[in-house]
C-alpha cells in the first residue's frame, strides 16, 4: 500500500532558491510555501557564493508555521577558508556551514573528468580564473588538515550548528571527520556522497560513518538531465551503513527540475518501491535532520 503523507514533518537540508545569478524554481518564500503545504516542517536553503541567512530570516517573517534555515558555504566570495567569516555567519544565524563547494580543487578536478558538476562550477566562475581551495596542507590528497580548517570547525562546534563537508576528496573528508571526532563534535554531514561514488567507495563510507559523520544522499544525482543515477545505488548505501547514518535531501531548486518538495516526495517513494521501509525514510528525512539541526521533536505524530 502506498504511504500517505510521506513528507509529514520532513526537513529538506539542501535546497537552492532565488534570488541567484542563475534561473531558480522560485525564491525561498515560494519554495517554503510549497514545502509547508506539502506537510514539511523545515528547509535549509543554500547558495554557493553568499550566505542565505537573510533569505531564511525574511522567509520566516513572511511564511508562518514553517521554518527556513540559512547557511553559508566557505567559497571565496564568502571569505574562503576564513574562521572570521565562519564566526560572522554563525553570529548572523547560519545553521549550516559548508566547507568549499564550487571553489574546491576537487570540484574542478571532477569537472575536468566530465562530472556534471562542471556545469555548476563554470556557472559560478563567470569566466574569471581564481585560486581553488583544499583542506589539507599538501593539497587534495596529502598532508594534515589545515589550521584554518580546524579553526572553522571549532567555530561551528562552538555555535553548535551543522558542519557540511562540501566537495572534497575522500582524503580531505576523512581528515576533516577525524578532527571533528577528536573534538567530540557530533553535527557533521558529508555532502551528497552519492555524487562522487567512484571516489567515495564503500570502505570510505564505512570509515566516515565510524568517525560519527552522517551521510547526505541527494536526489539531485538522480535527475534526468544530470547524474541519472540508478536509485538502486542509493539503496545499496542505505543497506550498507544503515538509515540511522543518512539524511536524504532534494538538492533541488533548479528551474528545470521538480520543486524541491516534489522531488523529495518522489525520491522517498522511489526508494520505498526499491525496498526501503517507510520507517527508514522517516529516520532519514525527519529524525536525523531534526537531531542534526538540534530541534525539538515534531509536536505532531508522524505518518
Amino acid at each position, binding site marked *: 500500500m502506498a504511504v500517505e503523507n510521506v513528507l509529514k514533518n520532513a526537513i529538506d537540508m539542501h535546497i537552492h532558491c*532565488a*534570488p*541567484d*545569478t542563475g534561473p531558480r524554481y522560485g*525564491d525561498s*518564500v515560494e519554495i517554503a510555501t510549497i514545502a509547508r503545504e506539502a506537510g514539511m516542517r523545515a528547509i535549509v536553503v543554500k547558495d554557493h*557564493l*553568499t*550566505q*542565505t*541567512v*537573510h*533569505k531564511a*530570516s*525574511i522567509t520566516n*517573517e*513572511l511564511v508562518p508555521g514553517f521554518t527556513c534555515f540559512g547557511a553559508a558555504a566557505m567559497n*571565496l*566570495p*564568502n*571569505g*574562503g577558508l*576564513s*574562521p*572570521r*567569516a565562519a*564566526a*560572522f555567519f554563525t*553570529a*548572523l*544565524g547560519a545553521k549550516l556551514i559548508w566547507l568549499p563547494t564550487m571553489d574546491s580543487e576537487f570540484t574542478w578536478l571532477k569537472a575536468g573528468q566530465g562530472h556534471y558538476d562542471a556545469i555548476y562550477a563554470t556557472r*559560478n*566562475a*563567470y569566466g*574569471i580564473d*581564481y585560486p581553488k581551495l583544499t583542506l589539507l596542507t599538501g593539497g587534495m590528497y596529502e598532508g594534515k588538515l589545515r589550521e584554518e580548517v580546524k579553526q572553522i570547525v571549532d567555530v561551528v562546534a562552538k555555535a553548535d550548528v551543522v558542519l557540511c563537508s562540501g566537495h572534497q576528496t575522500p582524503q580531505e573528508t576523512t581528515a576533516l571527520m577525524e578532527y571533528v571526532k577528536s573534538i567530540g563534535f557530533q553535527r557533521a554531514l558529508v555532502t551528497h556522497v552519492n555524487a562522487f561514488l567512484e571516489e567515495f567507495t564503500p570502505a570510505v563510507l564505512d570509515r566516515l560513518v565510524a568517525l560519527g559523520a552522517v551521510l547526505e544522499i541527494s536526489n539531485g544525482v538522480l535527475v534526468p538531465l544530470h547524474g541519472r543515477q540508478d536509485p538502486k545505488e542509493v539503496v545499496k548505501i542505505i543497506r550498507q551503513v544503515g538509515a540511522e547514518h543518512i539524511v536524504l535531501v532534494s538538492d533541488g531548486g533548479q528551474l528545470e527540475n521538480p520543486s524541491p518538495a516534489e522531488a523529495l516526495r518522489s525520491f522517498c517513494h522511489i526508494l520505498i518501491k526499491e525496498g526501503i521501509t517507510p520507517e527508514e525514510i522517516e529516520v532519514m528525512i525527519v529524525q536525523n535532520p531534526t537531531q542534526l539541526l538540534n530541534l525539538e521533536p515534531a509536536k505532531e505524530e508522524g505518518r
Partner: protein
Amino acid sequence: MIVRKDAFLQGAIDFHIHSGPDTHPRYGSCLELARQARDAGLRAIVLKDQMTQSIHKAYFVNKYVEGIQAFGGITLNRMVGGYDIRTVEFACRLGAKVIWLATHDSGYTIEAAKRGHYDAIYVKAFSFGYPVEPLSVLNKQKTDLSPEVKKIIEIIANYRVILQTGHIDPEEALAVAGYCQKIGYKKLVITHVNSFLNEYTDEVIAELIRKGAFIELSYGDLVPRHGRQDPHVCARLVDRFGPTRCILESDLGTWENISPTEGLRCFCHYLVYCGVPADYIHIMVKDNPARLLELS
C-alpha cells in the same frame, strides 16, 4: 513607528540604511523599514550591509512590499573576499546597484579606530575577535590603484552600478576618482564624507568633485551617542560645494537611534534651520540620488 508625511520625504530616497537581519539588533527588518519609508512617502531606499551583500534583502522588499523600491549592493570587506573581481562580477549579476569599497576592513578605518574614531566599536565588533588584514585600493608601492581595483571599477562601470568609496582614505579616494574620470565613469560617491572631515579637507573634497564625484552627507554623524556633529558643518559643506553634488542620507537602522526615515526627515529640517534653502534639500534627497539610481 509611523513617521510624519513630511513634504521633504515625498518622493525622497534614503541612500544608506542598515536593516535586519544582521549580527546585532537593528531597528527593523528590511521589510519593516521599507514599509515605514513607503508610508512616509519615500520612493526608494538603498540597503547596506557591512559584511555581506544586501541584494537578497532588496529583492524581497521589491517582491513583497508594494509601493517602494529597494536597492542592494555589496561592501568589499574581507568577508566577501575583499577587492575580489569575481565577487564583484557575482554581485553585479545578482543585481547590485551599489558597490562600496572596504569599510571596517580598510586600513584607514582600522587606523582611525586606533586614534579614537567612534568607528572603533564597529571595527572591533566586525572583527569577531580575529586579526584583520587591512585593505587598500593602492598597489604595494602606493603609486597607483592595484590592478584588481581597476578591473573592479571597470566591471562596476560596465554594469552602470554606483561606486561608493566606503571608508578609504583621501589618497585612495583621489586615486579612485582619478581612474573613474579617466574611464569616463560618473557614478562615484564619496561615502558620508562628513564622518571623515579631519582628513577630507575642503581641498580634498574640491578635487574629488572636480574629478566628478558626488559627496554624501550622513545623519549618522549627528546622533547623540556617536559623532555629535553640529549640523552647521553639513550646511557649510552644502553652501561651499553646492547642492548638485551633495546627497543626504540617514545611515541609520541602528537599534539605539531614531528610525532611518525619521532621521532623514529631521536631517532635512536641521539643514533648513542652518540656512540651507528648501529647494536645495529636494535636490539632495530626491534629484541627485534618483539620477544616480537611473530612476525617472
